């Protein structure tokens, strides 16, 4: 029953937003179809084509047979009638690519889980326990979000070396949370704030501990926020480059973005096929994840910006 109240509130909010969105289309009757064609559809089409072309080019190169790859005069480069899985097969069976993919996934998932646990506690403490100085700590966490990895990696490499983490997956699993925690704490704080305080008061009166409140009331209600935060964290980990490049040395411990750069840059004329296949296969898991959770992605992005 308590839960339904929250849901109704959320539903009302959703309706208002939709209502606003609907109304903004109310003035489109002012422009005619040809006008809209020139002012809206054409530029939009052009932009979307430019934004998606590199991926098309990636796919087409990855499935082109070798002799067509560099012969631009005899074969139209934009299309191929003899698609081949040769490059992808080479990639999966002749290189350590599956291992790199596994490394990337292992590091990304571990770092995401660690960060989420830390962020849930931190966000709950800042928004709900409201200890002394909670506001300041919230601000400091936001500042931490603004510290870019490219000014941290040099001292961090000496730290990683001192702790004996150099060239182990832990070098990444323990450093990635510094990028993820500020972001996901900030995002979860936003979600926790929307959960009515009364729910917690009722539970406190019934004798629940803070731990029980967090586990049984707050977390179930914040599931959408947890999903948004976790898929965004996964994307950030997958994308991370500079730490992975600096802290990992041996080939069998590398992540996809780093490994692919060192593996296929040997000056082979036909390397483009394997490079594009590697880039394609490396992007696919994220694109699939994205396809399932588009709305969560958008809310994570805009949620973090709006605060």
């Amino acid at each position: 029953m308590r839960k339904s109240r929250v849901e109704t509130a959320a539903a009302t909010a959703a309706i208002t937003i939709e209502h606003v969105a609907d109304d903004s289309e109310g003035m489109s009757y002012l422009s005619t179809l040809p006008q809209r064609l020139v002012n809206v559809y054409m530029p939009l089409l052009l932009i979307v084509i430019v934004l998606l072309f590199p991926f098309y080019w990636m796919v087409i190169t990855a499935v082109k047979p070798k002799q067509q790859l560099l012969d631009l005069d005899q074969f139209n480069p934009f299309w191929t009638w003899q698609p081949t899985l040769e490059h992808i097969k080479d990639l999966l069976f002749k290189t350590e690519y599956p291992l790199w993919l596994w490394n990337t996934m292992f590091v990304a998932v571990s770092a995401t889980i660690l960060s989420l646990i830390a962020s849930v506690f931190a966000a709950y403490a800042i928004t709900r326990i409201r200890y002394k100085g909670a506001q300041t700590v919230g601000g400091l966490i936001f500042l931490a979000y603004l510290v870019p990895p490219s000014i941290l990696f040099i001292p961090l490499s000496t730290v990683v070396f001192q702790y004996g983490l150099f060239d182990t997956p832990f070098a990444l699993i323990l450093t990635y949370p510094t990028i993820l925690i500020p972001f996901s704490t900030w995002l979860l704080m936003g979600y926790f704030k929307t959960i009515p305080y009364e729910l917690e008061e009722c539970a406190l009166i019934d004798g629940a501990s803070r731990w029980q409140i967090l586990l049984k009331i707050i977390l179930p209600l914040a599931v959408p926020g947890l999903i948004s935060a976790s898929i965004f964290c996964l994307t950030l980990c997958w994308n991370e480059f500079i730490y992975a490049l600096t802290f990992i040395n041996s080939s069998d411990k590398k992540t996809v973005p780093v490994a692919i750069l060192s593996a296929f840059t040997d000056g082979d004329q036909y390397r483009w096929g394997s490079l594009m296949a590697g880039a394609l296969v490396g992007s696919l898991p994220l694109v699939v994840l994205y396809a399932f959770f588009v709305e969560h992605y958008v809310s994570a992005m805009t949620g973090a910006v709006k605060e």
Partner: protein
Amino acid sequence: MVARLFENRNFLGLLFMLPAAAFLLAFLVYPLGLGVWLSFTDARIGRPGQFVGLENYIWIMGDFKFQTAVFFTLFYTIAASTVKFALGLYLALLLNHHLPFKAIIRAAVLIPFIVPTVLSAIAFWWIFDPQFSIISWSLRELGWIDGNIDFLGDVWNARWSVVFANVWRGVPFIAISLLAGLQTVPPSLYEAAVLDGATRWQMFVKITYPLLTPIIAVVMTFSVLFTFTDFQLIKVLTNGGPAGATELMATMSYNTAILGGRIGEGAAISTAMVPFLLAAIMVSWFGLQRRKWQAGSDDHA
């Protein structure tokens, strides 16, 4: 006694903050301080180093390579951020129209943001290939050019090419964030403006832009920050070349400290980014905030 402690707000708060604080102190705050310290030493890989005062900074200030890197970092940030902002806002306005398949278009627009930068940069590397570039080929077929364009081998071509790749990657984030902002503008304002005979441009300047400034300020602050500290695109596309023309401060500090082993000097280069970074944040943050305030004061005048 212990139970009492667990009811104390401050103690409980501290306990809950512990995991996050441990991570951030050990791997963010400590290295941040250590970086500043290292920049005042002559540390090398495997050797702690002695305090040398401002020597590293004096040395890099006089280094022509460093000056070029600072120039290009500024150029890269300003050029890419300006174009990203203009295109992102334009794209957001386009997407805010009533469109068929709007959800799919929006999802497609965001893909460059989802795909790992290194992997899309590799695709650009292939697109910018000196011999087999698809752009050169298309332009040749159209008869617009005779020879191939040397995208990454010529100084200014290389600079504009990496700016293009950066814009390509950054526009979706800005567009989708601004679109979210646009959707919160009450439509009744536009209806009132139309009744008053306002033109489209007037509506944009007097309604849309002022209402959007807070979100623009945040989005652009992030964008400037991430462009200034970019590393991946340059590392993949040009690795700083030709002849250091596209070297960013971040890539230069990597080359000096990790590849060259001169940790102290590299730390000085990356610490030198901090004042620029603070200035960039100030400009985009307060600059746009003041705009908002001015727009507000217009109403009272």
